[in-house]
C-alpha cells in the first residue's frame, strides 16, 4: 500500500478566532479554533492548515496562542501561514507547536528567506504558498473536472503568474519557474492556490495543478475552487496533487472530511480511513 493522499481542511483565523462561517451542527462555539480543530481531527483530517488573516500586529500575536492550544490537544500535523516575514517568525510558530510554516508574500519580497529558514529548521517544515493566476488569456470557465482544452486549442499555451497580497498584486513571476526555484532554496512542500478559482466552487485549476506538481520533486497541495467531492478526486487524478485542501465544503457542513475520504477511496484513491 502506498502513501495516502492527504485531505486538509483550512481554517482562516482572525484575532484568534476562526472566521468564514464554520457551521457544525452540534458544536458549542464555532469560532473556537480548538473546537473546530478537534472536530476535523475526529472526522479524520490528515493535517490542518491555519491561515492567519489578522490585519493588526496585536491580532497576529494571538495566532501563537491558537497554535499552542491546538497543538496541545490535536495530534496531527499543523501548518500555520499568514504574516510570516522573518526566520524568527518561523521559529516562533514552530516553538508554539506548528509542524510546518507557510511563507507567501515574504518569499516573493525576499526569496532567500526560504533558504535561511530551511537551513535553520529543515526543509520539512517550510511550505511555500504560491498564489497563481492564469495570464495567458481571459479565463475560460470549464465544466467541473474537465481540463481546459480550449486554451491549447487556441494556440497559446497556458501561463500563470505569482500574485501576492491575497491575489491583488501582480509580480510578473512565472509560477513554474518560481516553484522550481523555491524547491532549490529548500522548500519542503508547495501550497498552490489558484486565485482564479478561489471561492468559485468550480473545482481546482487542474492544468495549473498538474503543471506545477509535475515540475517539482516535492509534494504539492492543491487549493482553490473546491465545491464538490468529485473536485477532490480530480485534483489528485488529473491535477497530480499530493494533497487537497478545502475550506467551505467542510466549514458549512456540506460534507464531512470522512465523507470526502470515502468518496475518494471509492474512486480508487488511497486515503487514510
Amino acid at each position, binding site marked *: *500500500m*502506498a*502513501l*495516502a*493522499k*492527504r485531505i486538509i481542511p483550512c481554517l482562516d483565523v482572525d484575532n484568534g478566532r476562526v472566521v468564514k462561517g464554520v457551521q457544525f451542527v452540534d458544536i458549542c462555539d464555532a469560532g473556537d479554533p480548538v473546537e473546530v480543530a478537534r472536530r476535523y*481531527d475526529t472526522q479524520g483530517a*490528515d493535517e490542518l492548515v491555519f491561515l492567519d488573516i489578522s490585519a493588526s500586529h496585536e491580532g497576529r500575536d494571538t495566532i501563537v496562542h491558537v497554535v*499552542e492550544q491546538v*497543538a*496541545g*490537544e490535536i*495530534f*496531527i*500535523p499543523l501548518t500555520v501561514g499568514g504574516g510570516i516575514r522573518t526566520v524568527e517568525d518561523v521559529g516562533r510558530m*514552530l*516553538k*508554539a*507547536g*506548528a*509542524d510546518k510554516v507557510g511563507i507567501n508574500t515574504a518569499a516573493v519580497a525576499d526569496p532567500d528567506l526560504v533558504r535561511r529558514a530551511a537551513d535553520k*529548521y*529543515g*526543509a*520539512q*517544515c517550510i511550505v511555500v504558498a504560491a498564489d497563481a493566476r492564469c495570464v495567458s488569456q481571459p479565463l475560460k470557465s470549464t465544466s467541473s473536472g474537465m481540463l481546459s482544452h480550449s486554451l491549447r486549442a487556441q494556440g497559446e499555451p497556458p501561463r500563470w503568474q505569482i500574485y501576492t497580497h491575497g491575489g491583488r498584486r501582480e509580480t510578473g513571476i512565472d509560477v513554474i519557474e518560481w516553484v522550481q526555484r523555491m524547491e532549490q532554496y529548500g522548500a*519542503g*512542500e508547495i501550497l498552490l492556490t489558484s486565485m482564479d478559482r478561489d471561492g468559485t466552487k468550480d473545482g481546482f485549476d487542474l492544468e495549473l495543478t498538474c503543471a506545477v506538481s509535475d515540475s*517539482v*520533486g*516535492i*509534494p*504539492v497541495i492543491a487549493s482553490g475552487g473546491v465545491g464538490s467531492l468529485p473536485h477532490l478526486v480530480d485534483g489528485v487524478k488529473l491535477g497530480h496533487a*499530493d*494533497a487537497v485542501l478545502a475550506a467551505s465544503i467542510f466549514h458549512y457542513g456540506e460534507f464531512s472530511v470522512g465523507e470526502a475520504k470515502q468518496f475518494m477511496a471509492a474512486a480508487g484513491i488511497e486515503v*487514510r480511513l
Partner: protein
Amino acid sequence: MNSVAVIDYGMGNLRSVSKALEHVCPEASIHVTNDPTVITEADRVVFPGVGALREAMAELKRLSLDDLIKQQIKQKPFLGICLGMQALFDSSEENGGCEGLGILPGRARYFGQNRVDKTGHRLKVPHMGWSMLSLTRDHPMWHGIAPGSRFYFVHSYYVEPEQDDHIAAVCDYGGAFCAAVSATNVFAVQFHPEKSQAMGLRLLDNFMQWNGQ
C-alpha cells in the same frame, strides 16, 4: 513515579512530543530538558528531532549530550523519533556524509530523486504523509497497533541497519525501507507518533508502560 526526559537540543517541535506524552500519561512527570542530571535521573528517555543530522550532531556535542546519550541508552527504556532514530546509527549520506552517534550499526540513506511507485510515477521527496507499517516482529511497543495502521512520516533519509534483527517494522516508498528498529531497551521510529493521531498516541502509551525488555 514515571518520569521521562525529552531531550531538548534545539531540533524541532518538542512541544508536540511532550504534550502527546502528557496526554497519554497525565500522572507522569515529563521534562523537556538538556540538563544531564534530569536526563540521568529520568526513568525513560525520548530522543526526538527533525532537520539535518549534521546540525543535530553539532548541537549534541556542544551541549555535551552525545556521550550522555551513549551512556543513558544502555540503562533505561529509550525512544528515538525521526532524526532521533537516524542519529543512533553510524553515519548518514546527508550533506555529502556525516557521522552519527554510532550506537547501532548502519547508516541513513537518501531517498533520491528517481524513486518511482509501482505504476512508474515519480515519488516526491520528502516522503510526507500517512503510510502503512508492516510490523516485522512482536514487540511490547506494538501492543494494540492494528496491522496496516498508518503513521505520519516526513523525511528524506531512511535508515539501513546492518543487522536485520534490529528491524521492527518496514514501510514502502518505491521499495521497502526500515520504519522502526529495536535493540533490547532501545526502540526508534522514523515516523512521528506524536503526529499520528490515535495509533501514534497508542505507541507512546506503550512506551510509557514498557519496562525495556
